[in-house]
C-alpha cells in the first residue's frame, strides 16, 4: 500500500459523486481553455485580416460605426450605399489606388458563404492575388466566379464546375492560392455581375484604398473627404476600434471562464467536505494506526489534486472535441467569425493541454486545502467515537 493507492481507493469509492464532481471540473476547465483560446485567436485573427485587407484606408458610408468596420474585416455583408460616381471621384485622386467592393452573401448546401463583387483587374493588382488553379476573369463583366481556396475545397469547387449564386449558375473560372485571410472563404464575382445578381444597381459597400506615400496618409484622408461626402477610416484606426470591441468580448469570455472554474472549485470543496464528514470514523482509525495530522492532510489534498488532474484531462479532451465539432458552427457570428480553421487548433497545442491540466490540479489543490485542514484537525478520539 502507498498513499497514491489509498487515495485512488478513496476517490473512487462513491462512483456517482466521483463522476459528477469530475464532470463539473472537466466542464469548468474545458470552457476556461476554450474561452481563453477563443479570445486569444480572435485578436490574432483580426490583426491578420487587417493585414490581408491590404488597404491603408477604407472609404465607408458616413454613418458607418464600428460594427461596419468589423464587417469589413470579417467579410460580413455590408449594405451597398456608395455610388460608382463617388468611386470614380476617389479613383481620380492622384497618388492612390482605390478598389470598390460589394459584399454580399449566398448559400451553398445551406451554409452561408461570403460573396464579393470586385473590379477584376484592379483587385488582382491591389491584392497581388495569385491563381492556384484554372484562370482569372478574362473581362470585367464576364459571368463567372473565382473562388477562395478554403471554400473551393469545402464545397468541391474547381475550374470547370459551376457555382450557383442567387439562383444563377456561374462557371468557376479559377481558384485563388490560399492566403490565410478571409479571401480564402470568399466567392469573387466581377462587380458588374454581382451588382446585377444582387440588384444593387450601381452601388458598392466600401472602397479599399492604398496610398503611395504612407507619410501623407492624413492628407489623403482630407482629400477624399473633400472630394466625396463619405467617411474614411485608416486601417490602424479600424484595427484599434475593432480590437477594443474584441477586448470587451474577451473580458466577458474570461469572466465566464473564471466563473466556470470557480464553480468547479466549489464542487471539489463540497465533495471533499462531504468525504471528510463521511469518513470521520476512518480518519480516527488512521490516526489510531499512527497517521499524523500532516499525513491525513496530505491524503485529502492528494484526493483533491486527483480530481484536478483527472478533471483537467477530461476537460482537455472535452475541449478538443468541442473545438473539432462545434467551432465551425460558431463561425457564423460576427465576432467569432475570426475563429476559423487553424487557430482553433491552438488548443491542440501540447503546451496548452499540459498547462490546462496543471492549472486544473492547482485549482483543485487550492480548493482541497480547507477540507483537508478540517480532516487533519479532527481529534482522534472525536473521530473514533463517531458512528
Amino acid at each position, binding site marked *: 500500500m502507498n498513499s497514491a493507492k*489509498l487515495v485512488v481507493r478513496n476517490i473512487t469509492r462513491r462512483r456517482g459523486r466521483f463522476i459528477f464532481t469530475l464532470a463539473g471540473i472537466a466542464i469548468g476547465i474545458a470552457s476556461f481553455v476554450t474561452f481563453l483560446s477563443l479570445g486569444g485567436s480572435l485578436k490574432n485573427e483580426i490583426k491578420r485580416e487587417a493585414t490581408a485587407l491590404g488597404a491603408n484606408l477604407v472609404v465607408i458610408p458616413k454613418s458607418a460605426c464600428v460594427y461596419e468596420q468589423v464587417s469589413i474585416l470579417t467579410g460580413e455583408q455590408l449594405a451597398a450605399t456608395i455610388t460608382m460616381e463617388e468611386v470614380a471621384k476617389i479613383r481620380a485622386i492622384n497618388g492612390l489606388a482605390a478598389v470598390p467592393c460589394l459584399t454580399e452573401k449566398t448559400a451553398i448546401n445551406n451554409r452561408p458563404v461570403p460573396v464579393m463583387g470586385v473590379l477584376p483587374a484592379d483587385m488582382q493588382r491591389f491584392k497581388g492575388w495569385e491563381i492556384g488553379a484554372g484562370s482569372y476573369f478574362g473581362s470585367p463583366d464576364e459571368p463567372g466566379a473565382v473562388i477562395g481556396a478554403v471554400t473551393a475545397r469545402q464545397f468541391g469547387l474547381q475550374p470547370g464546375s459551376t457555382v450557383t449564386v442567387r439562383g444563377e449558375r456561374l462557371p468557376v473560372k479559377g481558384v485563388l492560392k490560399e492566403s490565410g485571410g478571409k479571401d480564402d472563404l470568399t466567392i469573387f464575382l466581377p462587380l458588374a455581375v454581382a451588382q446585377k445578381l444582387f440588384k444593387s444597381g450601381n452601388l458598392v459597400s466600401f472602397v479599399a484604398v492604398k496610398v503611395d506615400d504612407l507619410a501623407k496618409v492624413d492628407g489623403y484622408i482630407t482629400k477624399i473627404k473633400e472630394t466625396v461626402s463619405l467617411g474614411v477610416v485608416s486601417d490602424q484606426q479600424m484595427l484599434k476600434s475593432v480590437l477594443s470591441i474584441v477586448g470587451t468580448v474577451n473580458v466577458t469570455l474570461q469572466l465566464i471562464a473564471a466563473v466556470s472554474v470557480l464553480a468547479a472549485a466549489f464542487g471539489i470543496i463540497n465533495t471533499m467536505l462531504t468525504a471528510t464528514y463521511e469518513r470521520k470514523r476512518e480518519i480516527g482509525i*488512521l*490516526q489510531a494506526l499512527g497517521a499524523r495530522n500532516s499525513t491525513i492532510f496530505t491524503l485529502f489534498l492528494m484526493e483533491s489534486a486527483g480530481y484536478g488532474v483527472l478533471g483537467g484531462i477530461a476537460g482537455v479532451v472535452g475541449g478538443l472535441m468541442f473545438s473539432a465539432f462545434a467551432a465551425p458552427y460558431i463561425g457564423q457570428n460576427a465576432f467569432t467569425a475570426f475563429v476559423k480553421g487553424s487557430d482553433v487548433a491552438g488548443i491542440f497545442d501540447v503546451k496548452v493541454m499540459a498547462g490546462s491540466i496543471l492549472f486544473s490540479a492547482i485549482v483543485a489543490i487550492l480548493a482541497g486545502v480547507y477540507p483537508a485542514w478540517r480532516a487533519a484537525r479532527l481529534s*482522534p478520539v472525536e473521530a473514533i467515537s463517531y*458512528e
Partner: protein
Amino acid sequence: MSEAGARDWGIVKGEIMTETIIKTENLHKTYTSGAVKTHALRGVSLEIPRGSFTCIVGPSGHGKSTLMHLIGGLDRPSDGTVHIDGTELSGLGNRELAAVRAKRIGFVFQFFNLLQSLTAQENVEVAMMLAGVPEKDQAERARALLAQVGLAEKCAARPSELSGGQQQRVAIARALANSPDILLMDEPTGNLDSAAEAEVLELLFSLHRQGKTIVIVTHNNDIARQAQQVIRVSDGVISD
C-alpha cells in the same frame, strides 16, 4: 453461560512478572462540551506488567474507553501521566505520539475498525505504510498475519464481504502489523455472537502466549475470571 466460559485459555496465572510496561499516575480527564463538563477519569493510577493479560471492566459510561485512549496516546490527559515502556507520553509532541501509536501499540475497537474501501490485506498494509514500512515489504507480511488469524483465504475480501468475527480478526492482524508489544482492545467482542467471540478470544490468548501484553475492555465475566489482572473502573476511578 457462553461456550467461551467453559474453555481454559491457558493463561498462566501466578507467573511472576515484575517489569511494568504501562503505568499511569493520577490520570484525570475532563471533557468539556459547551457548558457541560464531564469528569470521565478522576485520578487513575495503575501498573500493567509486560506480557500480562489485563481486563478492564466496569459499567458503561464510567471511563473505560477514555482510559484506553489515554494509555494508547490517542488523547491527552487533563492531568496525570502515562508511561509506555519507560516513555512519558505527555513529553511527546504530536508526531512522536503518532509514532508511538504506529509502532508500539495495536488498537482494536468494538466495531467499524476497517477501512471500507480496502481489502483485508490492504487494511493490514495501511498500518505498515503509516509506520514507514516500504511497499515491497508489506504484502508478504500482511498475508502471513492474515493467515495467523485464520483468514488466509480472505486476503482479497472487502470488509462488507466478511462476517463480524472475521472483520475483528482482520483488525487484530492489522494491530499486529508493526509488531507492537501492546495490544489495546476496547470491547473487541462486544458486537459478536458467542461462536465468533470464542474464535477471537482464542486468538487473543494465543497472542498472549506469544508474549504480547494484552489490555482488554470487556463485559464478559468469563474472560475477566481468567485474566491475570482485572481493573475495575467505576465512575472514573479504580474501585477495590
